[in-house]
């Protein structure tokens, strides 16, 4: 059997943060020493304004990975080749290290629910998804990386556990996996499975990246709200995943009640400590310590012209885009999906 190189040959980028509009001004001003950024692809592929400009500035200084929410790989609708072409073009433009999306469908009959809906885990779905991944990879001319979504339902039509589906899918389509450790935890609570068993059973050499995030525990179930700190049980799962994969690029998602950039960055840096704790517990050596590749940031880089204060022109009114522009979290709203490109300063 064909055994791929670890992480499909992709680099270990270290500890990154999801790029959010609330942090644009801070990043352009401070150029924080974060290892890498992940963008929500849909927020940038059509932008001809400030989001695109900010992304270009960031891509000049940091590795960027493109994470999409509208590929809808599991849908029975036709693939959107126009969308794929835009992904490919932006990936080339910002030198995206890889392109990811989710094992899900987002809608059918031309509609988009803007949610990451789970698929029945059976042979029919597997064949369908594998065929579509192959097509997408051919168009993008690179391997696709797919994430396990959080889910709130399971189906009578499912015949295999999710980890088995992901294993077979990634082997048959020769694609990568994005292991969202928080999603494994959330789905584990929601579907009464053991998240450790899930993580142990995955094909670890195919895991290119990990996601971390906070969630909301509603007692009877968990909702993937991305609105807070990572809880300890999820960190423990992460440490286990780290050991099993040998360490992969790790990214924190924080999409609602977004705190200042430094708080988000500090949260992902906690990974270092958890990995050390875990390796001490396991008796493994220092090779298990999280790699943080410390991207070189030029502190003298010129401040962005858009970071300047507003210009008052005579009687004319001036302003930036008004809205806070992102999906937030009602207590019960999962928040995995794209946001309107948003506010500034």
């Amino acid at each position, binding site marked *: 059997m064909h055994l791929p190189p670890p992480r499909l040959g992709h680099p270990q980028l270290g500890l990154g943060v999801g790029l959010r509009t609330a942090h644009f001004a801070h990043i352009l001003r401070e150029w924080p020493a974060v290892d890498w950024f992940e963008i929500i692809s*849909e*927020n940038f592929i*059509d*932008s*001809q*304004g*400030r*989001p695109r*400009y900010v992304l270009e500035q960031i891509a000049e200084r940091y590795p960027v990975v493109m994470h999409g929410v*509208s590929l809808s790989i*599991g849908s*029975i609708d036709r693939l*959107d080749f126009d969308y794929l072409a835009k992904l490919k073009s932006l990936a080339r433009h910002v030198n995206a290290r890889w392109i990811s999306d989710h094992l899900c469908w987002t*809608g*059918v*009959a*031309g*509609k*988009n*629910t*803007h*949610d990451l*809906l789970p698929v*029945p885990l059976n042979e*029919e779905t597997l064949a369908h998804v594998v065929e579509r991944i192959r097509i997408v990879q051919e168009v993008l001319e690179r391997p696709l990386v797919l994430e396990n979504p959080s889910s*709130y*339902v399971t*189906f*009578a*039509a*499912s015949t295999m556990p999710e980890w088995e589906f992901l294993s077979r899918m990634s082997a048959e389509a020769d694609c990568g996996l994005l292991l969202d450790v928080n999603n494994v935890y959330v789905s584990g609570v929601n*579907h*009464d499975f053991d998240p450790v068993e899930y993580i142990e059973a995955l094909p670890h050499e195919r895991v290119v990246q990990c996601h971390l995030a906070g969630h909301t525990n509603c007692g*009877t*179930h968990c909702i993937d709200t991305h609105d807070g700190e990572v809880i300890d049980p999820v960190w423990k799962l992460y440490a286990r995943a780290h050991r099993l994969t040998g360490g992969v690029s790790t990214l924190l998602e924080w999409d609602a009640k977004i705190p200042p950039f430094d708080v988000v960055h500090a949260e992902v840096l906690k990974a270092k400590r958890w990995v050390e704790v875990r390796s001490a517990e396991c008796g493994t050596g220092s090779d298990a310590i999280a790699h943080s590749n410390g991207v070189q940031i030029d502190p003298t880089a010129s401040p962005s012209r*858009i970071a300047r204060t*507003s*210009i008052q*022109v*005579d009687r*004319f*009114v001036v*302003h*930036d*885009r*008004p*809205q*806070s522009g*992102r999906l*937030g979290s*009602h207590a*019960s*709203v*999962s*928040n995995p*999906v794209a*946001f*309107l*490109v*948003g506010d500034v300063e």
Partner: protein
Amino acid sequence: MTDEPPLSLDAFQRWMQKVIMHPGGVVAGAETVEAGLAIESVVTRSRALSSFERLDIYNRSYFARLLECMQAEYSVLATAIGEELFDSFALGYLQQHPSQSYTLAELGERFPDYLAATRPVDGGVGDEGDWPEFLIDLARLERTINVVFDGPGTEGESLLDRERLMAIQPDHWAESRLECVPCLKLLPLSYPINDYFTAVRRGDQPDLPARAPAWLAITRRDFRVYRYPLVATQFHLLHALLNGETVGSAIEQAAATSPVPEDQFAADLRDWFFQWTTAGFFRDVRLTDRGHDG
């Protein structure tokens, strides 16, 4: 689990989408599907939640998520009319115009037109007069600002400047055409909402303005969106220029609407063209047929 054969992926997705997008909830949604499948025959339960409760999470999230996006895009309108009324409008809109795009940036695209198409015929009641027009104005402004913010711009380009404008020979002026920047948009309004809009965004609670026709130009420079209140004559002038008409023809149309004496109008024109050039409304000037670029 039941004895029914499992649904095909196709039938499953059509069923689930109808159920989770139904505004009356998943039970009402399941009843609308011809097959009449029971939720429990498709969705399995967990230890803590029934099939219905689990599927219902997707139904509630669908509307809450998209309403939040609509509120974000139309935040001033939502503040002006209150969240409850806004949500009822937005809910009606989402049912008539569900997203068909990979991007949420297009979610609210047709909301101003939807409000216009569904406004009460008598224009509302009592002191509030024809307030629907006011809401439609606000919606149009917010949508236009978003379009200008993320659409094509001229950052990094050199635009028409005062020197080049002044260098155009007088006898070439009337025949020349001013190429407007792609981010310049004009909005004719039923209410002078500009100051109201600014005040709400500042967090104030301004009084509603009295109804009167108003006009705005909206554009972008250095990735910032600017609003310029216009008088009617300015609007007609810019409108003709945006349509690609010659300066002479545009001025002629504007003059027909000018309330001021001719010499005053001539002086105004000079000021306006300088102001608009400074504000970056024009990318270039082209001379038609005779002569060449001044």
